[in-house]
């Protein structure tokens, strides 16, 4: 008998690659229907103003223009609902699909033009005249609260979290360390802009929307409700998706508009975003100001952390509502023992593009804050940054560790981890002592070089459930129907590997279906690094169930007991290697329609991967450019289904983290005019900026919360990059605490280099 081939744990080639390499992908813009109309959005050019009138007559007069909609045409459509962390008091701040009475950011949809041709639609949109009475914009999220406009205040809610006696800890403290820190305004900026194509099939009374991503099922339910349909007669369909990173696939005004228009006009409606629109209309994220202090004892042990922060949410509360500031508050303690903790997060409205999540939301920010604090504590106590971290790490024996905080409807309980071990392994890989010695020598020779370390705990595997159906088709191929989405991360390959091992087939014989609401009724989608954990375990459960069924049915046909059979490389064989065998195709043809199984994985707790980043940098003192000379990452994911895919998630995350740390920033002028509206202004890292890196994926702390021990890998590459580069830059400047704001753009760094420490 041949030994069964196993796939989980191996870096097998991706199933996704071939069509993408051949140019046969089907991205949103590739979807077209005969007779389709093109939609173009007319956007506010004013950051804040009263909308007095809209004159579309010139646009409507243009040949090829079919219609122009303003708010009165969509007044019956309710505002876009909250998907996560939807606090009641935030509801008045939800966004309507077209602006009503006021405009609140440059880029806000005010009207839409429908035309036979994309070029004509753009011409017509330029001809729509907006009469806007400008009002003073609110651009600072940190000052006093006040009116946002006639009907809203600038601070709709305050997030409060904490435990322990913070006041007592500060009273008893040996010393207090205080910092004021900020992170810049960034976004995921996938290479494919957003797109949505809606088509109404009158014969079947089905409305379908193509271009869905991330959370098609939730969006199906809620878009249907918004436009007066039901989940039964609406389908969302995901094609290839050109990157997600948190920002793509939420319900945006444009998704609802194409659906409503496809119904109203009974024409396919196609909307493809251009890049300028993307940079001012798709979710922004990350802009926060933190005023943090830590109480410490004489050895630098943390006694308490007290953090007040301001979250610049832009002009509306979108689908994520309070999610990002909530995560900032909940995840700040990280891998350290913090006996008492208080976080007060002010959610603030400003006249900027509204916000949502971006890879490691709330954690990129709070890791920067916490790790800056650790470096400051180290400086205060006079020990090095590695030692201060060691002193404060939560020990392996303390797992599971209840943080006594909640987020995303779950209690935060670190399920497993050996933080000190990963620190040791990562420092060893980085050659830390030798690196330190080398940098010291180079600094003595006049080079501005330095290194830093940052640690963090990630979260992943958000429940509450995932269902998967596995079926053997009549040709013997296996179909795994999931309720998750693919945003380019390799979900097809990873799920196929898991199903293959459970069933006993080759992973290349498996088709993984995702993002199709007409194929499975429920699905949670792809966010919060949840897919491999939640859908992976559901896939395993359903596959195991199907395997039992296959063996039972085959045993009847082969006149033996199920226990006497096995499935090896797609063939049902006798364990004692005697007698005939049977292929899955033969069984499927013998028992048509019966070879399927469905199962659901439920989980009420998230699982918590953790990591260490080490960076060494060199500063060009003339230009302020930062060269990252060495970058080492240790990340424990419990169990890696496909180590190469895990590594590539980390590598891609690092590139995005680097952009946020050094280059990327949505800047506004004093009138609220966005200044980063092209790729020439919003500077994403290129092959020149992203360093070669050493990635160590470990499996020292499998999750006890699922049988395979899985934890998600999507966000650990990005999480601490701002923190570790700040630490390394401090070291290069030989000025502890110098870096307090991200991104550290060349201009800012040159200013720091040229300014003597005393005058800062």
């Amino acid at each position, binding site marked *: 008998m041949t030994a069964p081939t196993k796939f989980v744990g191996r870096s097998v*080639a*991706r199933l*996704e*690659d*071939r069509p*993408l*390499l*051949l*140019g*046969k*992908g*089907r*991205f949103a*813009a*590739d979807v*077209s229907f005969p007779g389709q109309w093109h939609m173009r959005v007319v956007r506010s050019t004013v950051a804040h103003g009263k909308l007095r009138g809209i004159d579309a007559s010139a646009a409507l007069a243009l040949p*090829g223009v079919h219609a122009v909609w303003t708010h009165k045409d969509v007044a019956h459509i309710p505002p876009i609902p909250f998907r996560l962390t939807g606090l009641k008091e935030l509801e008045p701040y939800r966004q309507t699909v077209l602006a009503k009475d006021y405009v609140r950011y440059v880029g806000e949809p005010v009207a839409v033009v429908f035309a036979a041709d*994309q*070029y004509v639609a753009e*011409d017509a949109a330029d001809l729509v005249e907006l009469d806007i009475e400008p009002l003073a914009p609110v651009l600072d999220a940190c000052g006093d609260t006040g009116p946002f406009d006639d009907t809203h205040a600038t601070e709709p809610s305050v997030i409060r979290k904490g435990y322990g006696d913070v006041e007592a800890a500060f009273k008893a403290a040996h010393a207090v360390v205080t910092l004021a820190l900020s992170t810049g305004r960034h976004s*995921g*900026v*996938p*290479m*494919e*802009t957003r797109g949505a194509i809606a088509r109404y099939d009158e014969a079947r009374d089905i409305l379908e929307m193509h271009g869905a991503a991330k959370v098609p099922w939730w969006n199906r339910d809620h878009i249907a409700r918004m436009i007066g349909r039901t989940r039964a007669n609406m389908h969302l369909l995901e094609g*290839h*998706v*050109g*990157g*997600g*990173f948190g920002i793509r696939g939420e319900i945006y005004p444009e998704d609802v508009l194409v659906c409503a228009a496809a119904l109203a006009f009974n024409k396919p409606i196609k909307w493809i975003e*251009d*890049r300028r629109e993307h940079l001012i209309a798709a979710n922004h994220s990350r802009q926060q100001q933190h005023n943090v202090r830590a109480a410490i004892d004489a050895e630098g042990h943390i006694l308490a952390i007290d953090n007040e922060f301001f979250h610049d949410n832009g002009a509306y509360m979108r689908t994520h509502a309070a999610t990002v500031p909530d995560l900032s508050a909940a995840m700040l303690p990280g891998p350290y023992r913090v006996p008492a903790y208080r976080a007060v997060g002010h959610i603030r409205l400003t006249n900027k593009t509204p916000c949502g999540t971006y890879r490691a939301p709330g954690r990129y920010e709070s890791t920067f804050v916490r790790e800056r604090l650790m470096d400051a504590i180290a400086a205060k106590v006079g020990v090095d940054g590695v030692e201060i971290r060691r002193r404060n790490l939560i020990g392996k024996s303390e797992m599971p560790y209840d943080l006594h905080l909640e987020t995303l409807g779950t209690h935060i309980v670190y399920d497993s981890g050996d933080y000190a071990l990963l620190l040791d392994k990562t420092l060893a890989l980085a050659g830390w002592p030798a690196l330190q010695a080398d940098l010291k020598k180079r600094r003595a020779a006049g080079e501005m070089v330095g290194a830093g370390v940052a640690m963090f705990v990630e979260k992943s595997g958000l429940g509450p459930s995932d269902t998967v159906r596995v079926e053997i088709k009549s040709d013997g191929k296996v179909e795994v129907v999931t309720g998750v989405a693919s*945003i*380019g*991360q*390799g979900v097809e390959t990873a799920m196929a590997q898991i199903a293959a091992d459970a069933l006993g087939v080759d992973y290349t014989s498996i088709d993984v279906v995702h993002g199709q609401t007409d194929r499975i009724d429920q699905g949670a989608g792809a966010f919060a690094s949840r897919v491999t954990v939640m859908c992976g375990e559901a896939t395993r459960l359903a596959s195991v169930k199907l395997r039992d069924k296959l063996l039972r049915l085959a045993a009847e046909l082969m006149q033996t007991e199920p226990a006497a059979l096995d499935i090896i490389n797609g063939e049902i064989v006798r364990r004692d290697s005697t007698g005939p065998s049977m292929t899955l195709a033969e069984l499927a043809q013998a028992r048509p329609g019966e070879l399927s199984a469905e199962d659901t994985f439920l989980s009420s707790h998230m699982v918590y991967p953790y990591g260490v980043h080490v960076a060494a940098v060199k500063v060009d003192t003339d230009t302020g450019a930062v060269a990252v000379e060495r970058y080492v990452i240790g990340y424990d994911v419990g169990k890696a289904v496909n180590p*190469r*895919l895990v590594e*590539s998630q980390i*590598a*891609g*995350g*690092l*590139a*995005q983290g680097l952009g946020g740390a050094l280059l990327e920033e949505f800047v506004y002028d004093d009138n609220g005019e966005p200044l980063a509206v*092209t*790729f*020439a202004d919003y500077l*994403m*890292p*290129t*092959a*020149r*900026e*992203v360093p*070669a*890196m050493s990635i160590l994926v470990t499996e020292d702390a499998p999750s006890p919360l699922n049988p395979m021990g899985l934890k998600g890998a999507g966000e650990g*590459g990005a999480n601490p990059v701002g923190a570790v580069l700040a630490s390394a830059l401090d070291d290069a400047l030989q000025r502890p605490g110098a870096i307090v704001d991200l991104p550290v753009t060349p201009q800012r760094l040159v200013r720091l280099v040229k300014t003597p420490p005393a005058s800062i």
Partner: protein
Amino acid sequence: MTDKTALTLTINGRDHAIAVEARRTLADAIREDCGQTGTHIGCEHGICGACTVIVNGEPVRSCLMFAVQAEGKKIRTVEGLADGETLHPMQQAFMDHHGLQCGFCTPGFLMLAVGVLEREPDINDDDLLDVLSSNLCRCTGYQNIIKAVRAAAEQMRGK
């Protein structure tokens, strides 16, 4: 502005007779008028390079060129790289080195790298890095793209 010019675009050796406005970009013409949607549009201002195609042997950004300017020229797109079922060495190298995730920027990187290596097979590593830094990818962190292109370069030189 609706005056259309009749022209023929030669894409991967096949002629496409189309009629387009003078302002129509080559990228839109390739995708919408000739139905070759493997060429992607990422920014429409010539920075991201997702729309890179090879015109008369040279990689160009098809969002910055008008369709009418490409008449009579030999246009190559990602659809023309493979030889039947056999992937071009560059495509194979991207697969072998995991040089793609979402795959949206991939056609642009393939055409950029193939175009440059065909003209300059012995390009040194640093110059190659300069070339690759002219396109944007948001998923991979570039290291696997660089590895893939270097591997394919070696293979293309060996041919």
